[in-house]
């Protein structure tokens, strides 16, 4: 038997670097989804060919305040995600960073909350526009503004994908923090 001493307490940073690379690519996907949703909603503009006395013949995202909130929230979150790419690259380079990972997790949680709030406020309005509530005389406007409704629904899909990716990013940061 040889003399020796066993050294404990040094975790391999290779796994954390793999997690950081995955984090970077997931962030790129989230940027795509969120930005696509914001742009698709902001460029809605459907004008109906006929003229009616009671209903306006043009639909834009501005007309419904929840959709305007969605555009603002998505834009803020996509700007944040683009800026956070820098922190993600820092984690790839320096795999032992702890405080910046906690900061990134905190900011990701706030961004996810904001994006989810915007998306679901818009989703509630879109569901109302598709079906309406006859009890309180709120009629479904999607039967007239067909293209507007389709575009708005598509943009919501993009931003919900962004929320899903943000959840994965938070879980990745948590796992990376616990592996040391």
């Amino acid at each position: 038997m040889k003399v020796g001493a066993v050294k404990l307490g040094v975790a391999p940073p290779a796994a954390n670097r793999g997690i950081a690379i995955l984090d970077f690519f997931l962030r790129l996907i989230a940027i795509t989804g969120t930005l696509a949703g914001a742009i698709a909603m902001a460029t809605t503009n459907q004008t109906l060919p006929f003229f009616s006395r009671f209903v306006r013949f043009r639909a834009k995202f501005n007309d419904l305040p929840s959709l305007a909130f969605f555009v603002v929230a998505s834009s803020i979150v996509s700007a944040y995600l683009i800026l956070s790419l820098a922190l993600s690259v820092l984690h790839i380079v320096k795999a032992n960073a702890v405080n910046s990972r906690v900061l990134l997790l905190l900011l990701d949680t706030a961004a996810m909350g904001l994006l989810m709030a915007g998306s679901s406020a818009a989703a509630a309005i879109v569901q109302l526009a598709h079906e309406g509530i006859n009890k309180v005389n709120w009629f479904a406007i999607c039967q007239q503004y067909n293209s507007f409704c389709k575009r708005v629904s598509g943009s919501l899909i993009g931003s919900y994908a962004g929320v899903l990716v943000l959840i994965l990013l938070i879980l990745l940061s948590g796992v990376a923090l616990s592996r040391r």
Partner: protein
Amino acid sequence: MDSTHSTKESTQIPIPMTESKSAKTAPPPVVVAATKKAAQRPLVTRWKRGLGIFDFILRICAIAAALAAATAMGTTNQQLPFFTQFFQFKADYNDLPAFTFFVIANATAGAYLVLSLPFSIVCIVRPHIVGARLMLIVFDTIAVPLITAAASAAASIVYLAHNGNSNANWAAICQQFDDFCQRVSGAVVASFITAVIFMVLVVVSAVALRRN
């Protein structure tokens, strides 16, 4: 600073060597008293335990908020004494799908919080545990968007009920259903408080997970 410091911490365990022919040339057994780590460990334990207690208290507050929101929304039932041609004279949370989702989501969050209390207690009793904290952070991260979705969908409908929308010909119904609107607005506020508490819980779990 913390990260580089902890990577330099190490514990050396002495392994006794057997007597051999070259015993006199072998070096003496090494006993390194890891005094630095032993002195730091009670401090880290105390600090993590403090975070665990804070987590537990926040969970209790979140239970109160989530159940209050679900109850306030679920017990809405306003009947107007008069009868008009255009409006139904009864308002219930069932009439609006966003409110139904709100009640379900807040009740689910309240139930999850009650079930997660034992895990939170385990994290107080054993501050260095990783598995329970990781599980709590996973489920809290799933709960944040659920509660945020419910709260903001209901807020969107409540805003519409208060103000109406002339572009879509949606009339403001709060002018008639006053009590219903007040109750529903209070429920939405309680739900947003729950969402903020969940976000703080995620960050607390993350901070307590580090430096393991």
